[in-house]
Protein backbone atom coordinates (compact mmCIF):
# COMPACT_ATOMS: atom_id res chain seq x y z
CA UNK A 1 0.00 0.00 0.00
CA UNK A 2 1.56 3.26 -1.14
CA UNK A 3 1.43 5.98 1.44
CA UNK A 4 1.37 8.68 -1.22
CA UNK A 5 -1.92 7.40 -2.54
CA UNK A 6 -4.66 9.60 -1.04
CA UNK A 7 -7.28 6.93 -1.63
CA UNK A 8 -5.45 4.45 0.52
CA UNK A 9 -4.80 6.98 3.23
CA UNK A 10 -8.47 7.90 3.21
CA UNK A 11 -9.57 4.31 3.40
CA UNK A 12 -7.49 3.75 6.48
CA UNK A 13 -8.60 6.97 8.12
CA UNK A 14 -12.28 6.48 7.44
CA UNK A 15 -12.75 2.85 8.34
CA UNK A 16 -15.12 3.61 11.22
CA UNK A 17 -18.33 5.65 11.29
CA UNK A 18 -17.55 9.23 10.65
CA UNK A 19 -18.96 10.80 13.74
CA UNK A 20 -18.06 9.58 17.16
CA UNK A 21 -19.80 12.30 19.10
CA UNK A 22 -23.16 12.00 20.75
CA UNK A 23 -25.02 11.96 17.43
CA UNK A 24 -27.59 14.39 16.12
CA UNK A 25 -29.76 16.07 18.70
CA UNK A 26 -33.51 16.36 18.87
CA UNK A 27 -35.18 19.13 16.86
CA UNK A 28 -33.82 22.51 17.72
CA UNK A 29 -35.35 25.61 16.19
CA UNK A 30 -32.02 27.40 16.27
CA UNK A 31 -30.00 24.71 14.50
CA UNK A 32 -26.68 26.30 13.54
CA UNK A 33 -26.48 27.25 9.88
CA UNK A 34 -30.24 27.17 9.36
CA UNK A 35 -30.31 30.81 8.26
CA UNK A 36 -27.55 30.27 5.70
CA UNK A 37 -29.45 27.31 4.31
CA UNK A 38 -32.65 29.32 4.06
CA UNK A 39 -30.77 32.09 2.24
CA UNK A 40 -29.48 29.52 -0.24
CA UNK A 41 -33.00 28.16 -0.71
CA UNK A 42 -34.53 31.59 -1.30
CA UNK A 43 -32.17 32.12 -4.25
CA UNK A 44 -33.65 29.12 -6.12
CA UNK A 45 -35.85 29.97 -9.10
CA UNK A 46 -39.37 28.99 -7.94
CA UNK A 47 -40.24 27.82 -11.47
CA UNK A 48 -37.13 25.84 -12.29
CA UNK A 49 -38.89 22.50 -11.93
CA UNK A 50 -40.93 23.37 -15.04
CA UNK A 51 -37.69 23.72 -17.00
CA UNK A 52 -36.45 20.25 -16.07
CA UNK A 53 -37.41 18.22 -19.14
CA UNK A 54 -36.05 14.71 -18.83
CA UNK A 55 -36.58 11.54 -20.79
CA UNK A 56 -37.31 8.26 -19.11
CA UNK A 57 -34.16 6.21 -18.80
CA UNK A 58 -33.52 2.88 -17.18
Amino acid at each position, binding site marked *: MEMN*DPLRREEKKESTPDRKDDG*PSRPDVSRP*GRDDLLKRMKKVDPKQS*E*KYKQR*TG*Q
Partner: protein
Amino acid sequence: MKRRIYGIETEYGLLIKEEDFKYGPIDVAVRIKNHIFDQKQGVLDLHYRANDEPPGNGGFLANGGRIYLDMGHLEYASPECSNLVDLITFDRAGDEIVQKALEELGWSEQVAFIKNNVDLETNATFGCHENYLVSRAFQFDNRENLRLLASFLVTRQIYAGAGRTGACNPQPFRDWDDIHQTRKDEEKVNFQISQRADHIPNEFYRWVQYNRAIVNTRDEQLSDPSKYRRIHLLVGDSNMSEFACALKMGTTSLMMELIELGVANPEWILSNSVDTMRDISRDPEFKWEITLRDGKPTTALELQWGMLQAGKKYLAGSSSDADWVLEAWESVLTDMPKGPEALIGRVDWASKYWLLTEFMKSENVGWQDPWIKSLDLEFHNLNKAHGLYWGLEANGDAHRKTSDEAIRFAMSSAPKGTRADGRGELVKTLLECQTGYLIDWIGFRLNKEEPFLMLDPFVSYKKEIQEYLRRMDLQEPFDGKNYFR
Protein backbone atom coordinates in the same frame (compact mmCIF):
# COMPACT_ATOMS: atom_id res chain seq x y z
CA MET B 1 -17.83 -9.48 4.73
CA LYS B 2 -17.05 -11.37 1.58
CA ARG B 3 -14.82 -9.88 -1.04
CA ARG B 4 -17.08 -7.95 -3.32
CA ILE B 5 -16.81 -5.91 -6.44
CA TYR B 6 -19.07 -2.88 -6.34
CA GLY B 7 -20.08 -0.42 -9.01
CA ILE B 8 -22.62 2.36 -9.47
CA GLU B 9 -24.07 3.67 -12.72
CA THR B 10 -25.64 7.13 -12.61
CA GLU B 11 -27.93 8.63 -15.23
CA TYR B 12 -27.69 12.38 -14.68
CA GLY B 13 -30.51 14.83 -15.21
CA LEU B 14 -29.74 18.12 -16.95
CA LEU B 15 -31.60 21.28 -16.04
CA ILE B 16 -31.39 24.10 -18.58
CA LYS B 17 -31.96 27.07 -16.30
CA GLU B 18 -31.62 29.87 -18.87
CA GLU B 19 -34.76 30.36 -20.99
CA ASP B 20 -32.94 31.13 -24.23
CA PHE B 21 -30.01 28.80 -23.84
CA LYS B 22 -28.71 27.72 -27.23
CA TYR B 23 -28.92 23.97 -26.58
CA GLY B 24 -31.46 21.56 -25.15
CA PRO B 25 -30.56 18.92 -22.56
CA ILE B 26 -29.68 16.22 -25.08
CA ASP B 27 -27.39 18.55 -27.06
CA VAL B 28 -25.77 19.65 -23.82
CA ALA B 29 -25.18 16.03 -22.82
CA VAL B 30 -23.52 15.30 -26.18
CA ARG B 31 -21.27 18.36 -25.95
CA ILE B 32 -20.23 17.63 -22.39
CA LYS B 33 -19.39 14.05 -23.32
CA ASN B 34 -17.34 15.30 -26.28
CA HIS B 35 -15.57 17.85 -24.10
CA ILE B 36 -14.55 15.19 -21.56
CA PHE B 37 -12.95 13.08 -24.28
CA ASP B 38 -11.46 16.13 -26.06
CA GLN B 39 -9.73 16.86 -22.77
CA LYS B 40 -8.14 13.41 -22.99
CA GLN B 41 -9.78 12.03 -19.88
CA GLY B 42 -10.55 8.83 -21.75
CA VAL B 43 -10.79 7.15 -25.15
CA LEU B 44 -13.99 7.08 -27.21
CA ASP B 45 -15.32 3.79 -28.50
CA LEU B 46 -14.34 3.12 -32.10
CA HIS B 47 -16.98 0.44 -32.51
CA TYR B 48 -20.68 -0.22 -32.04
CA ARG B 49 -21.49 -1.54 -28.56
CA ALA B 50 -25.18 -1.89 -29.42
CA ASN B 51 -27.60 -0.54 -32.01
CA ASP B 52 -28.14 2.57 -29.90
CA GLU B 53 -24.46 2.90 -28.95
CA PRO B 54 -22.58 3.80 -32.13
CA PRO B 55 -18.87 4.62 -32.23
CA GLY B 56 -18.19 7.82 -30.32
CA ASN B 57 -21.27 7.47 -28.13
CA GLY B 58 -19.06 7.03 -25.09
CA GLY B 59 -15.84 5.53 -23.91
CA PHE B 60 -13.66 4.36 -21.06
CA LEU B 61 -11.90 6.81 -18.77
CA ALA B 62 -8.41 6.87 -17.34
CA ASN B 63 -9.95 6.02 -13.96
CA GLY B 64 -11.32 2.77 -15.42
CA GLY B 65 -14.93 3.96 -15.47
CA ARG B 66 -17.11 4.94 -18.42
CA ILE B 67 -18.97 8.00 -19.67
CA TYR B 68 -21.61 7.56 -22.35
CA LEU B 69 -24.99 8.65 -23.59
CA ASP B 70 -27.93 6.42 -22.76
CA MET B 71 -31.57 7.15 -23.49
CA GLY B 72 -31.01 10.89 -23.61
CA HIS B 73 -28.97 11.01 -20.40
CA LEU B 74 -25.30 11.44 -19.77
CA GLU B 75 -24.32 8.37 -17.76
CA TYR B 76 -21.26 7.57 -15.69
CA ALA B 77 -20.38 4.02 -14.69
CA SER B 78 -17.86 3.85 -11.89
CA PRO B 79 -14.91 1.51 -12.25
CA GLU B 80 -15.02 -1.75 -10.34
CA CYS B 81 -14.25 -1.06 -6.67
CA SER B 82 -13.35 -3.58 -3.98
CA ASN B 83 -14.34 -1.57 -0.89
CA LEU B 84 -16.85 1.06 0.15
CA VAL B 85 -14.43 3.98 0.45
CA ASP B 86 -13.23 3.44 -3.11
CA LEU B 87 -16.80 3.06 -4.31
CA ILE B 88 -17.94 6.36 -2.82
CA THR B 89 -14.77 8.09 -3.98
CA PHE B 90 -15.13 6.91 -7.57
CA ASP B 91 -18.86 7.61 -7.64
CA ARG B 92 -18.17 11.17 -6.53
CA ALA B 93 -15.30 11.38 -9.05
CA GLY B 94 -17.90 10.89 -11.80
CA ASP B 95 -19.93 13.78 -10.43
CA GLU B 96 -16.83 15.94 -10.43
CA ILE B 97 -15.84 14.95 -13.98
CA VAL B 98 -19.19 16.01 -15.45
CA GLN B 99 -19.49 19.15 -13.28
CA LYS B 100 -15.94 20.22 -14.17
CA ALA B 101 -16.74 19.83 -17.87
CA LEU B 102 -19.80 22.04 -17.43
CA GLU B 103 -17.67 24.70 -15.78
CA GLU B 104 -14.93 24.47 -18.41
CA LEU B 105 -17.53 25.05 -21.11
CA GLY B 106 -18.65 28.18 -19.25
CA TRP B 107 -22.19 26.90 -18.71
CA SER B 108 -22.32 26.42 -14.96
CA GLU B 109 -24.76 29.28 -14.37
CA GLN B 110 -27.08 28.37 -17.24
CA VAL B 111 -27.11 24.58 -16.87
CA ALA B 112 -27.13 22.29 -13.84
CA PHE B 113 -26.45 18.60 -13.36
CA ILE B 114 -29.19 17.15 -11.16
CA LYS B 115 -28.28 13.82 -9.57
CA ASN B 116 -31.81 12.58 -8.97
CA ASN B 117 -34.12 9.98 -10.51
CA VAL B 118 -37.36 11.67 -11.42
CA ASP B 119 -38.73 14.60 -13.40
CA LEU B 120 -41.33 15.95 -10.99
CA GLU B 121 -43.40 17.51 -13.77
CA THR B 122 -43.63 14.61 -16.22
CA ASN B 123 -42.70 11.71 -13.94
CA ALA B 124 -40.03 10.53 -16.34
CA THR B 125 -37.64 8.42 -14.30
CA PHE B 126 -34.01 7.47 -14.75
CA GLY B 127 -31.76 5.34 -12.70
CA CYS B 128 -29.04 4.78 -10.24
CA HIS B 129 -27.91 1.22 -10.84
CA GLU B 130 -26.05 -0.75 -8.20
CA ASN B 131 -23.78 -3.63 -9.14
CA TYR B 132 -22.62 -6.36 -6.77
CA LEU B 133 -20.48 -9.31 -7.73
CA VAL B 134 -21.62 -12.45 -5.94
CA SER B 135 -20.64 -16.05 -6.36
CA ARG B 136 -22.40 -18.14 -8.96
CA ALA B 137 -23.80 -20.11 -6.04
CA PHE B 138 -26.23 -17.25 -5.36
CA GLN B 139 -29.21 -18.92 -7.01
CA PHE B 140 -31.61 -16.78 -8.98
CA ASP B 141 -33.94 -19.67 -9.63
CA ASN B 142 -34.42 -19.98 -5.89
CA ARG B 143 -37.31 -17.58 -5.48
CA GLU B 144 -37.03 -17.64 -1.68
CA ASN B 145 -33.61 -15.99 -2.03
CA LEU B 146 -35.06 -13.33 -4.27
CA ARG B 147 -38.03 -12.73 -1.96
CA LEU B 148 -35.67 -12.24 0.96
CA LEU B 149 -33.61 -9.78 -1.06
CA ALA B 150 -36.81 -7.99 -2.11
CA SER B 151 -37.90 -7.65 1.53
CA PHE B 152 -34.59 -6.07 2.37
CA LEU B 153 -34.64 -3.71 -0.63
CA VAL B 154 -38.21 -2.61 0.02
CA THR B 155 -37.47 -1.71 3.64
CA ARG B 156 -33.98 -0.25 3.22
CA GLN B 157 -35.57 2.84 1.65
CA ILE B 158 -36.13 4.16 5.19
CA TYR B 159 -32.44 5.11 5.20
CA ALA B 160 -31.45 4.80 1.52
CA GLY B 161 -34.25 6.85 -0.07
CA ALA B 162 -33.49 10.28 -1.48
CA GLY B 163 -37.04 11.56 -1.00
CA ARG B 164 -39.31 13.43 -3.39
CA THR B 165 -42.26 15.75 -3.31
CA GLY B 166 -45.53 14.49 -4.79
CA ALA B 167 -46.14 11.20 -6.52
CA CYS B 168 -46.49 9.48 -9.83
CA ASN B 169 -50.07 8.37 -9.45
CA PRO B 170 -51.09 4.99 -10.70
CA GLN B 171 -50.93 4.01 -14.27
CA PRO B 172 -51.49 0.46 -15.47
CA PHE B 173 -47.85 -0.54 -15.72
CA ARG B 174 -48.56 -3.46 -17.98
CA ASP B 175 -51.23 -3.82 -20.63
CA TRP B 176 -52.71 -6.83 -18.89
CA ASP B 177 -52.94 -5.16 -15.47
CA ASP B 178 -55.72 -3.21 -13.84
CA ILE B 179 -54.80 -0.32 -11.65
CA HIS B 180 -54.64 -1.55 -8.08
CA GLN B 181 -58.12 -1.18 -6.61
CA THR B 182 -57.00 0.78 -3.60
CA ARG B 183 -55.12 3.24 -5.77
CA LYS B 184 -57.79 4.16 -8.28
CA ASP B 185 -58.55 7.38 -6.47
CA GLU B 186 -55.78 9.87 -6.86
CA GLU B 187 -53.82 9.84 -3.69
CA LYS B 188 -52.68 13.21 -2.51
CA VAL B 189 -49.07 12.77 -1.56
CA ASN B 190 -47.03 15.68 -0.27
CA PHE B 191 -43.75 13.88 0.24
CA GLN B 192 -42.39 10.39 -0.04
CA ILE B 193 -39.09 8.94 1.06
CA SER B 194 -38.19 7.16 -2.21
CA GLN B 195 -37.81 8.57 -5.71
CA ARG B 196 -38.22 5.22 -7.42
CA ALA B 197 -40.97 3.50 -5.42
CA ASP B 198 -43.71 4.68 -7.79
CA HIS B 199 -41.86 3.30 -10.78
CA ILE B 200 -41.29 -0.32 -9.78
CA PRO B 201 -44.28 -2.51 -10.72
CA ASN B 202 -42.72 -5.97 -10.39
CA GLU B 203 -41.02 -8.02 -7.72
CA PHE B 204 -38.70 -9.87 -10.10
CA TYR B 205 -38.11 -9.16 -13.77
CA ARG B 206 -35.25 -8.72 -16.16
CA TRP B 207 -36.23 -5.56 -18.02
CA VAL B 208 -34.56 -2.29 -17.19
CA GLN B 209 -37.01 0.21 -18.67
CA TYR B 210 -40.70 0.57 -17.77
CA ASN B 211 -41.40 -2.92 -16.36
CA ARG B 212 -38.72 -2.46 -13.72
CA ALA B 213 -38.50 -4.83 -10.78
CA ILE B 214 -37.38 -4.69 -7.17
CA VAL B 215 -34.92 -7.45 -8.02
CA ASN B 216 -33.66 -7.22 -11.57
CA THR B 217 -32.92 -10.75 -12.76
CA ARG B 218 -30.92 -9.95 -15.88
CA ASP B 219 -27.96 -12.30 -15.94
CA GLU B 220 -25.08 -10.38 -17.49
CA GLN B 221 -22.00 -11.32 -15.49
CA LEU B 222 -19.31 -9.19 -17.17
CA SER B 223 -16.88 -11.72 -15.71
CA ASP B 224 -16.26 -15.47 -15.66
CA PRO B 225 -19.82 -16.89 -15.73
CA SER B 226 -18.69 -20.15 -14.15
CA LYS B 227 -17.62 -18.30 -10.99
CA TYR B 228 -19.58 -15.11 -10.66
CA ARG B 229 -22.94 -13.46 -10.92
CA ARG B 230 -23.44 -9.71 -11.17
CA ILE B 231 -26.51 -8.55 -9.31
CA HIS B 232 -27.66 -5.40 -11.07
CA LEU B 233 -30.24 -3.44 -9.07
CA LEU B 234 -32.18 -0.46 -10.36
CA VAL B 235 -34.60 -0.07 -7.47
CA GLY B 236 -32.57 2.49 -5.52
CA ASP B 237 -32.21 6.25 -5.58
CA SER B 238 -29.12 8.30 -6.35
CA ASN B 239 -27.72 9.51 -3.06
CA MET B 240 -26.13 12.86 -2.37
CA SER B 241 -24.90 11.81 1.07
CA GLU B 242 -21.70 9.77 1.00
CA PHE B 243 -22.77 8.11 4.23
CA ALA B 244 -26.18 7.14 2.78
CA CYS B 245 -24.64 5.71 -0.38
CA ALA B 246 -22.06 3.68 1.57
CA LEU B 247 -24.75 2.45 3.95
CA LYS B 248 -27.07 1.51 1.08
CA MET B 249 -24.42 -0.49 -0.75
CA GLY B 250 -22.87 -1.91 2.41
CA THR B 251 -26.10 -3.17 3.97
CA THR B 252 -27.18 -4.66 0.64
CA SER B 253 -23.89 -6.49 0.37
CA LEU B 254 -24.28 -7.85 3.92
CA MET B 255 -27.81 -8.99 3.15
CA MET B 256 -26.56 -10.82 0.06
CA GLU B 257 -23.99 -12.51 2.23
CA LEU B 258 -26.61 -13.61 4.77
CA ILE B 259 -28.55 -15.12 1.87
CA GLU B 260 -25.44 -16.80 0.49
CA LEU B 261 -24.71 -18.25 3.94
CA GLY B 262 -28.26 -19.58 4.14
CA VAL B 263 -28.98 -17.73 7.39
CA ALA B 264 -31.46 -15.12 6.14
CA ASN B 265 -34.74 -15.73 7.93
CA PRO B 266 -37.66 -16.72 5.64
CA GLU B 267 -39.98 -15.04 8.14
CA TRP B 268 -38.70 -11.70 6.81
CA ILE B 269 -40.50 -12.20 3.50
CA LEU B 270 -43.22 -9.64 2.80
CA SER B 271 -46.80 -10.43 1.83
CA ASN B 272 -46.70 -8.05 -1.16
CA SER B 273 -43.41 -6.35 -1.78
CA VAL B 274 -44.47 -4.07 -4.65
CA ASP B 275 -47.40 -2.50 -2.79
CA THR B 276 -45.39 -2.37 0.43
CA MET B 277 -42.66 -0.44 -1.33
CA ARG B 278 -45.07 2.31 -2.31
CA ASP B 279 -46.92 2.25 1.02
CA ILE B 280 -43.69 2.77 2.96
CA SER B 281 -42.54 5.50 0.62
CA ARG B 282 -45.81 7.42 0.87
CA ASP B 283 -46.51 7.05 4.60
CA PRO B 284 -46.87 10.66 5.86
CA GLU B 285 -46.36 9.61 9.48
CA PHE B 286 -43.21 7.56 8.88
CA LYS B 287 -44.70 4.59 10.75
CA TRP B 288 -43.93 2.26 7.83
CA GLU B 289 -46.31 -0.50 8.88
CA ILE B 290 -45.96 -3.67 6.84
CA THR B 291 -47.35 -7.20 6.71
CA LEU B 292 -45.17 -10.26 6.45
CA ARG B 293 -45.97 -13.29 4.30
CA ASP B 294 -47.24 -15.18 7.36
CA GLY B 295 -49.74 -12.38 8.01
CA LYS B 296 -47.85 -10.91 10.94
CA PRO B 297 -47.95 -7.11 11.15
CA THR B 298 -44.70 -5.29 11.87
CA THR B 299 -42.81 -2.21 10.65
CA ALA B 300 -40.01 -1.62 8.18
CA LEU B 301 -37.89 -0.39 11.06
CA GLU B 302 -38.41 -3.59 13.05
CA LEU B 303 -37.66 -5.74 10.03
CA GLN B 304 -34.43 -3.84 9.44
CA TRP B 305 -33.50 -4.34 13.10
CA GLY B 306 -33.94 -8.09 12.62
CA MET B 307 -31.70 -8.06 9.57
CA LEU B 308 -29.10 -5.97 11.40
CA GLN B 309 -29.08 -8.41 14.34
CA ALA B 310 -28.46 -11.30 11.95
CA GLY B 311 -25.66 -9.30 10.34
CA LYS B 312 -24.07 -8.71 13.73
CA LYS B 313 -24.39 -12.36 14.67
CA TYR B 314 -22.87 -13.81 11.51
CA LEU B 315 -20.69 -11.09 9.99
CA ALA B 316 -19.30 -8.89 12.76
CA GLY B 317 -15.50 -8.80 12.58
CA SER B 318 -15.36 -10.29 9.10
CA SER B 319 -13.87 -7.10 7.61
CA SER B 320 -13.44 -3.42 8.42
CA ASP B 321 -16.14 -2.61 5.88
CA ALA B 322 -18.56 -5.03 7.56
CA ASP B 323 -17.88 -3.47 10.95
CA TRP B 324 -18.36 0.05 9.60
CA VAL B 325 -21.66 -0.97 8.00
CA LEU B 326 -22.97 -2.70 11.11
CA GLU B 327 -22.16 0.28 13.32
CA ALA B 328 -23.54 2.85 10.87
CA TRP B 329 -26.67 0.74 10.29
CA GLU B 330 -27.33 0.51 14.02
CA SER B 331 -26.77 4.24 14.54
CA VAL B 332 -29.29 5.14 11.85
CA LEU B 333 -31.95 2.67 13.02
CA THR B 334 -31.49 3.91 16.59
CA ASP B 335 -31.94 7.56 15.57
CA MET B 336 -34.80 7.00 13.16
CA PRO B 337 -37.59 7.30 15.76
CA LYS B 338 -36.22 10.70 16.78
CA GLY B 339 -37.41 12.16 13.47
CA PRO B 340 -35.84 13.53 10.29
CA GLU B 341 -33.69 16.18 11.95
CA ALA B 342 -31.78 13.51 13.84
CA LEU B 343 -30.75 11.99 10.50
CA ILE B 344 -29.57 15.08 8.62
CA GLY B 345 -26.50 14.38 6.52
CA ARG B 346 -26.84 10.61 6.89
CA VAL B 347 -30.23 10.01 5.24
CA ASP B 348 -31.04 12.01 2.12
CA TRP B 349 -34.82 11.99 2.39
CA ALA B 350 -34.58 13.20 5.98
CA SER B 351 -32.17 16.01 5.07
CA LYS B 352 -34.47 17.08 2.25
CA TYR B 353 -37.60 16.83 4.39
CA TRP B 354 -36.06 18.99 7.11
CA LEU B 355 -34.88 21.61 4.60
CA LEU B 356 -38.25 21.80 2.86
CA THR B 357 -40.29 22.00 6.07
CA GLU B 358 -38.03 24.71 7.48
CA PHE B 359 -38.43 26.65 4.24
CA MET B 360 -42.21 26.25 4.26
CA LYS B 361 -42.36 27.58 7.82
CA SER B 362 -40.10 30.49 6.95
CA GLU B 363 -41.91 31.49 3.75
CA ASN B 364 -45.41 30.43 4.78
CA VAL B 365 -45.88 28.22 1.71
CA GLY B 366 -47.27 24.69 1.42
CA TRP B 367 -46.27 21.45 -0.25
CA GLN B 368 -48.22 22.35 -3.38
CA ASP B 369 -46.28 25.54 -4.01
CA PRO B 370 -44.17 25.10 -7.19
CA TRP B 371 -41.19 26.52 -5.31
CA ILE B 372 -41.09 23.32 -3.25
CA LYS B 373 -40.65 21.16 -6.35
CA SER B 374 -37.88 23.46 -7.51
CA LEU B 375 -36.14 23.18 -4.14
CA ASP B 376 -36.52 19.41 -4.29
CA LEU B 377 -34.51 19.45 -7.53
CA GLU B 378 -31.98 21.88 -6.10
CA PHE B 379 -31.13 19.41 -3.33
CA HIS B 380 -29.52 17.28 -6.07
CA ASN B 381 -27.70 20.05 -7.97
CA LEU B 382 -24.02 19.08 -8.33
CA ASN B 383 -22.96 22.73 -8.42
CA LYS B 384 -21.54 23.35 -4.95
CA ALA B 385 -22.25 27.07 -5.14
CA HIS B 386 -25.99 26.41 -5.44
CA GLY B 387 -27.02 22.85 -4.56
CA LEU B 388 -28.82 22.48 -1.24
CA TYR B 389 -26.93 19.35 -0.22
CA TRP B 390 -23.69 21.31 -0.45
CA GLY B 391 -25.17 23.87 1.90
CA LEU B 392 -25.45 21.09 4.47
CA GLU B 393 -21.87 20.09 3.77
CA ALA B 394 -20.67 23.68 4.16
CA ASN B 395 -22.58 23.74 7.42
CA GLY B 396 -20.67 20.70 8.70
CA ASP B 397 -23.76 18.48 8.53
CA ALA B 398 -22.55 16.12 5.80
CA HIS B 399 -21.20 12.82 7.08
CA ARG B 400 -18.37 12.07 4.73
CA LYS B 401 -16.88 8.77 3.73
CA THR B 402 -14.11 10.11 1.51
CA SER B 403 -12.35 13.44 0.94
CA ASP B 404 -12.07 16.05 -1.80
CA GLU B 405 -8.39 15.16 -2.21
CA ALA B 406 -9.21 11.50 -2.82
CA ILE B 407 -12.00 12.42 -5.26
CA ARG B 408 -9.65 14.62 -7.30
CA PHE B 409 -7.17 11.75 -7.45
CA ALA B 410 -9.91 9.37 -8.59
CA MET B 411 -10.90 11.54 -11.53
CA SER B 412 -7.84 10.37 -13.44
CA SER B 413 -6.52 7.30 -11.58
CA ALA B 414 -8.10 3.87 -11.29
CA PRO B 415 -8.88 2.05 -8.03
CA LYS B 416 -6.35 -0.52 -6.84
CA GLY B 417 -7.17 -4.17 -6.40
CA THR B 418 -9.53 -4.68 -9.32
CA ARG B 419 -9.21 -5.02 -13.08
CA ALA B 420 -10.08 -1.31 -13.36
CA ASP B 421 -6.43 -0.69 -12.48
CA GLY B 422 -5.25 -2.54 -15.58
CA ARG B 423 -7.93 -0.90 -17.72
CA GLY B 424 -6.85 2.53 -16.51
CA GLU B 425 -3.29 1.70 -17.55
CA LEU B 426 -4.54 0.66 -20.98
CA VAL B 427 -6.59 3.84 -21.45
CA LYS B 428 -3.70 6.08 -20.42
CA THR B 429 -1.46 4.32 -22.95
CA LEU B 430 -4.03 4.52 -25.74
CA LEU B 431 -4.41 8.25 -25.20
CA GLU B 432 -0.89 8.59 -26.59
CA CYS B 433 -1.25 6.12 -29.47
CA GLN B 434 -2.87 5.81 -32.87
CA THR B 435 -3.65 2.14 -32.74
CA GLY B 436 -7.12 0.69 -33.17
CA TYR B 437 -8.78 -0.65 -30.03
CA LEU B 438 -11.90 -2.26 -28.76
CA ILE B 439 -12.42 -2.08 -25.00
CA ASP B 440 -15.11 -3.70 -22.91
CA TRP B 441 -15.52 -4.44 -19.20
CA ILE B 442 -14.20 -7.96 -19.68
CA GLY B 443 -11.16 -7.22 -21.82
CA PHE B 444 -9.84 -5.47 -24.89
CA ARG B 445 -8.40 -6.02 -28.32
CA LEU B 446 -5.76 -3.96 -30.10
CA ASN B 447 -5.46 -3.88 -33.88
CA LYS B 448 -6.02 -7.40 -35.14
CA GLU B 449 -4.45 -9.16 -32.18
CA GLU B 450 -6.28 -11.79 -30.20
CA PRO B 451 -8.44 -10.36 -27.39
CA PHE B 452 -6.88 -9.82 -23.98
CA LEU B 453 -9.42 -11.17 -21.52
CA MET B 454 -9.91 -9.81 -17.99
CA LEU B 455 -12.48 -12.27 -16.69
CA ASP B 456 -11.64 -11.97 -13.01
CA PRO B 457 -12.64 -8.55 -11.65
CA PHE B 458 -10.49 -9.11 -8.53
CA VAL B 459 -7.28 -9.24 -10.61
CA SER B 460 -5.70 -5.95 -11.68
CA TYR B 461 -3.95 -7.42 -14.77
CA LYS B 462 -1.78 -4.29 -14.62
CA LYS B 463 1.63 -5.92 -15.03
CA GLU B 464 0.36 -8.27 -17.73
CA ILE B 465 -1.15 -5.34 -19.62
CA GLN B 466 2.05 -3.30 -19.32
CA GLU B 467 4.02 -6.26 -20.68
CA TYR B 468 1.46 -6.84 -23.45
CA LEU B 469 1.57 -3.18 -24.47
CA ARG B 470 5.37 -3.22 -24.59
CA ARG B 471 5.23 -5.95 -27.23
CA MET B 472 2.77 -4.08 -29.45
CA ASP B 473 3.34 -1.58 -32.22
CA LEU B 474 1.13 1.12 -30.77
CA GLN B 475 1.74 3.62 -33.51
CA GLU B 476 0.12 1.52 -36.23
CA PRO B 477 -2.67 3.78 -37.51
CA PHE B 478 -6.23 2.70 -36.87
CA ASP B 479 -7.70 1.04 -39.96
CA GLY B 480 -11.44 1.18 -39.32
CA LYS B 481 -12.31 -0.48 -42.61
CA ASN B 482 -10.45 -3.69 -41.89
CA TYR B 483 -10.41 -3.64 -38.12
CA PHE B 484 -13.63 -5.45 -37.30
CA ARG B 485 -13.12 -8.61 -39.25
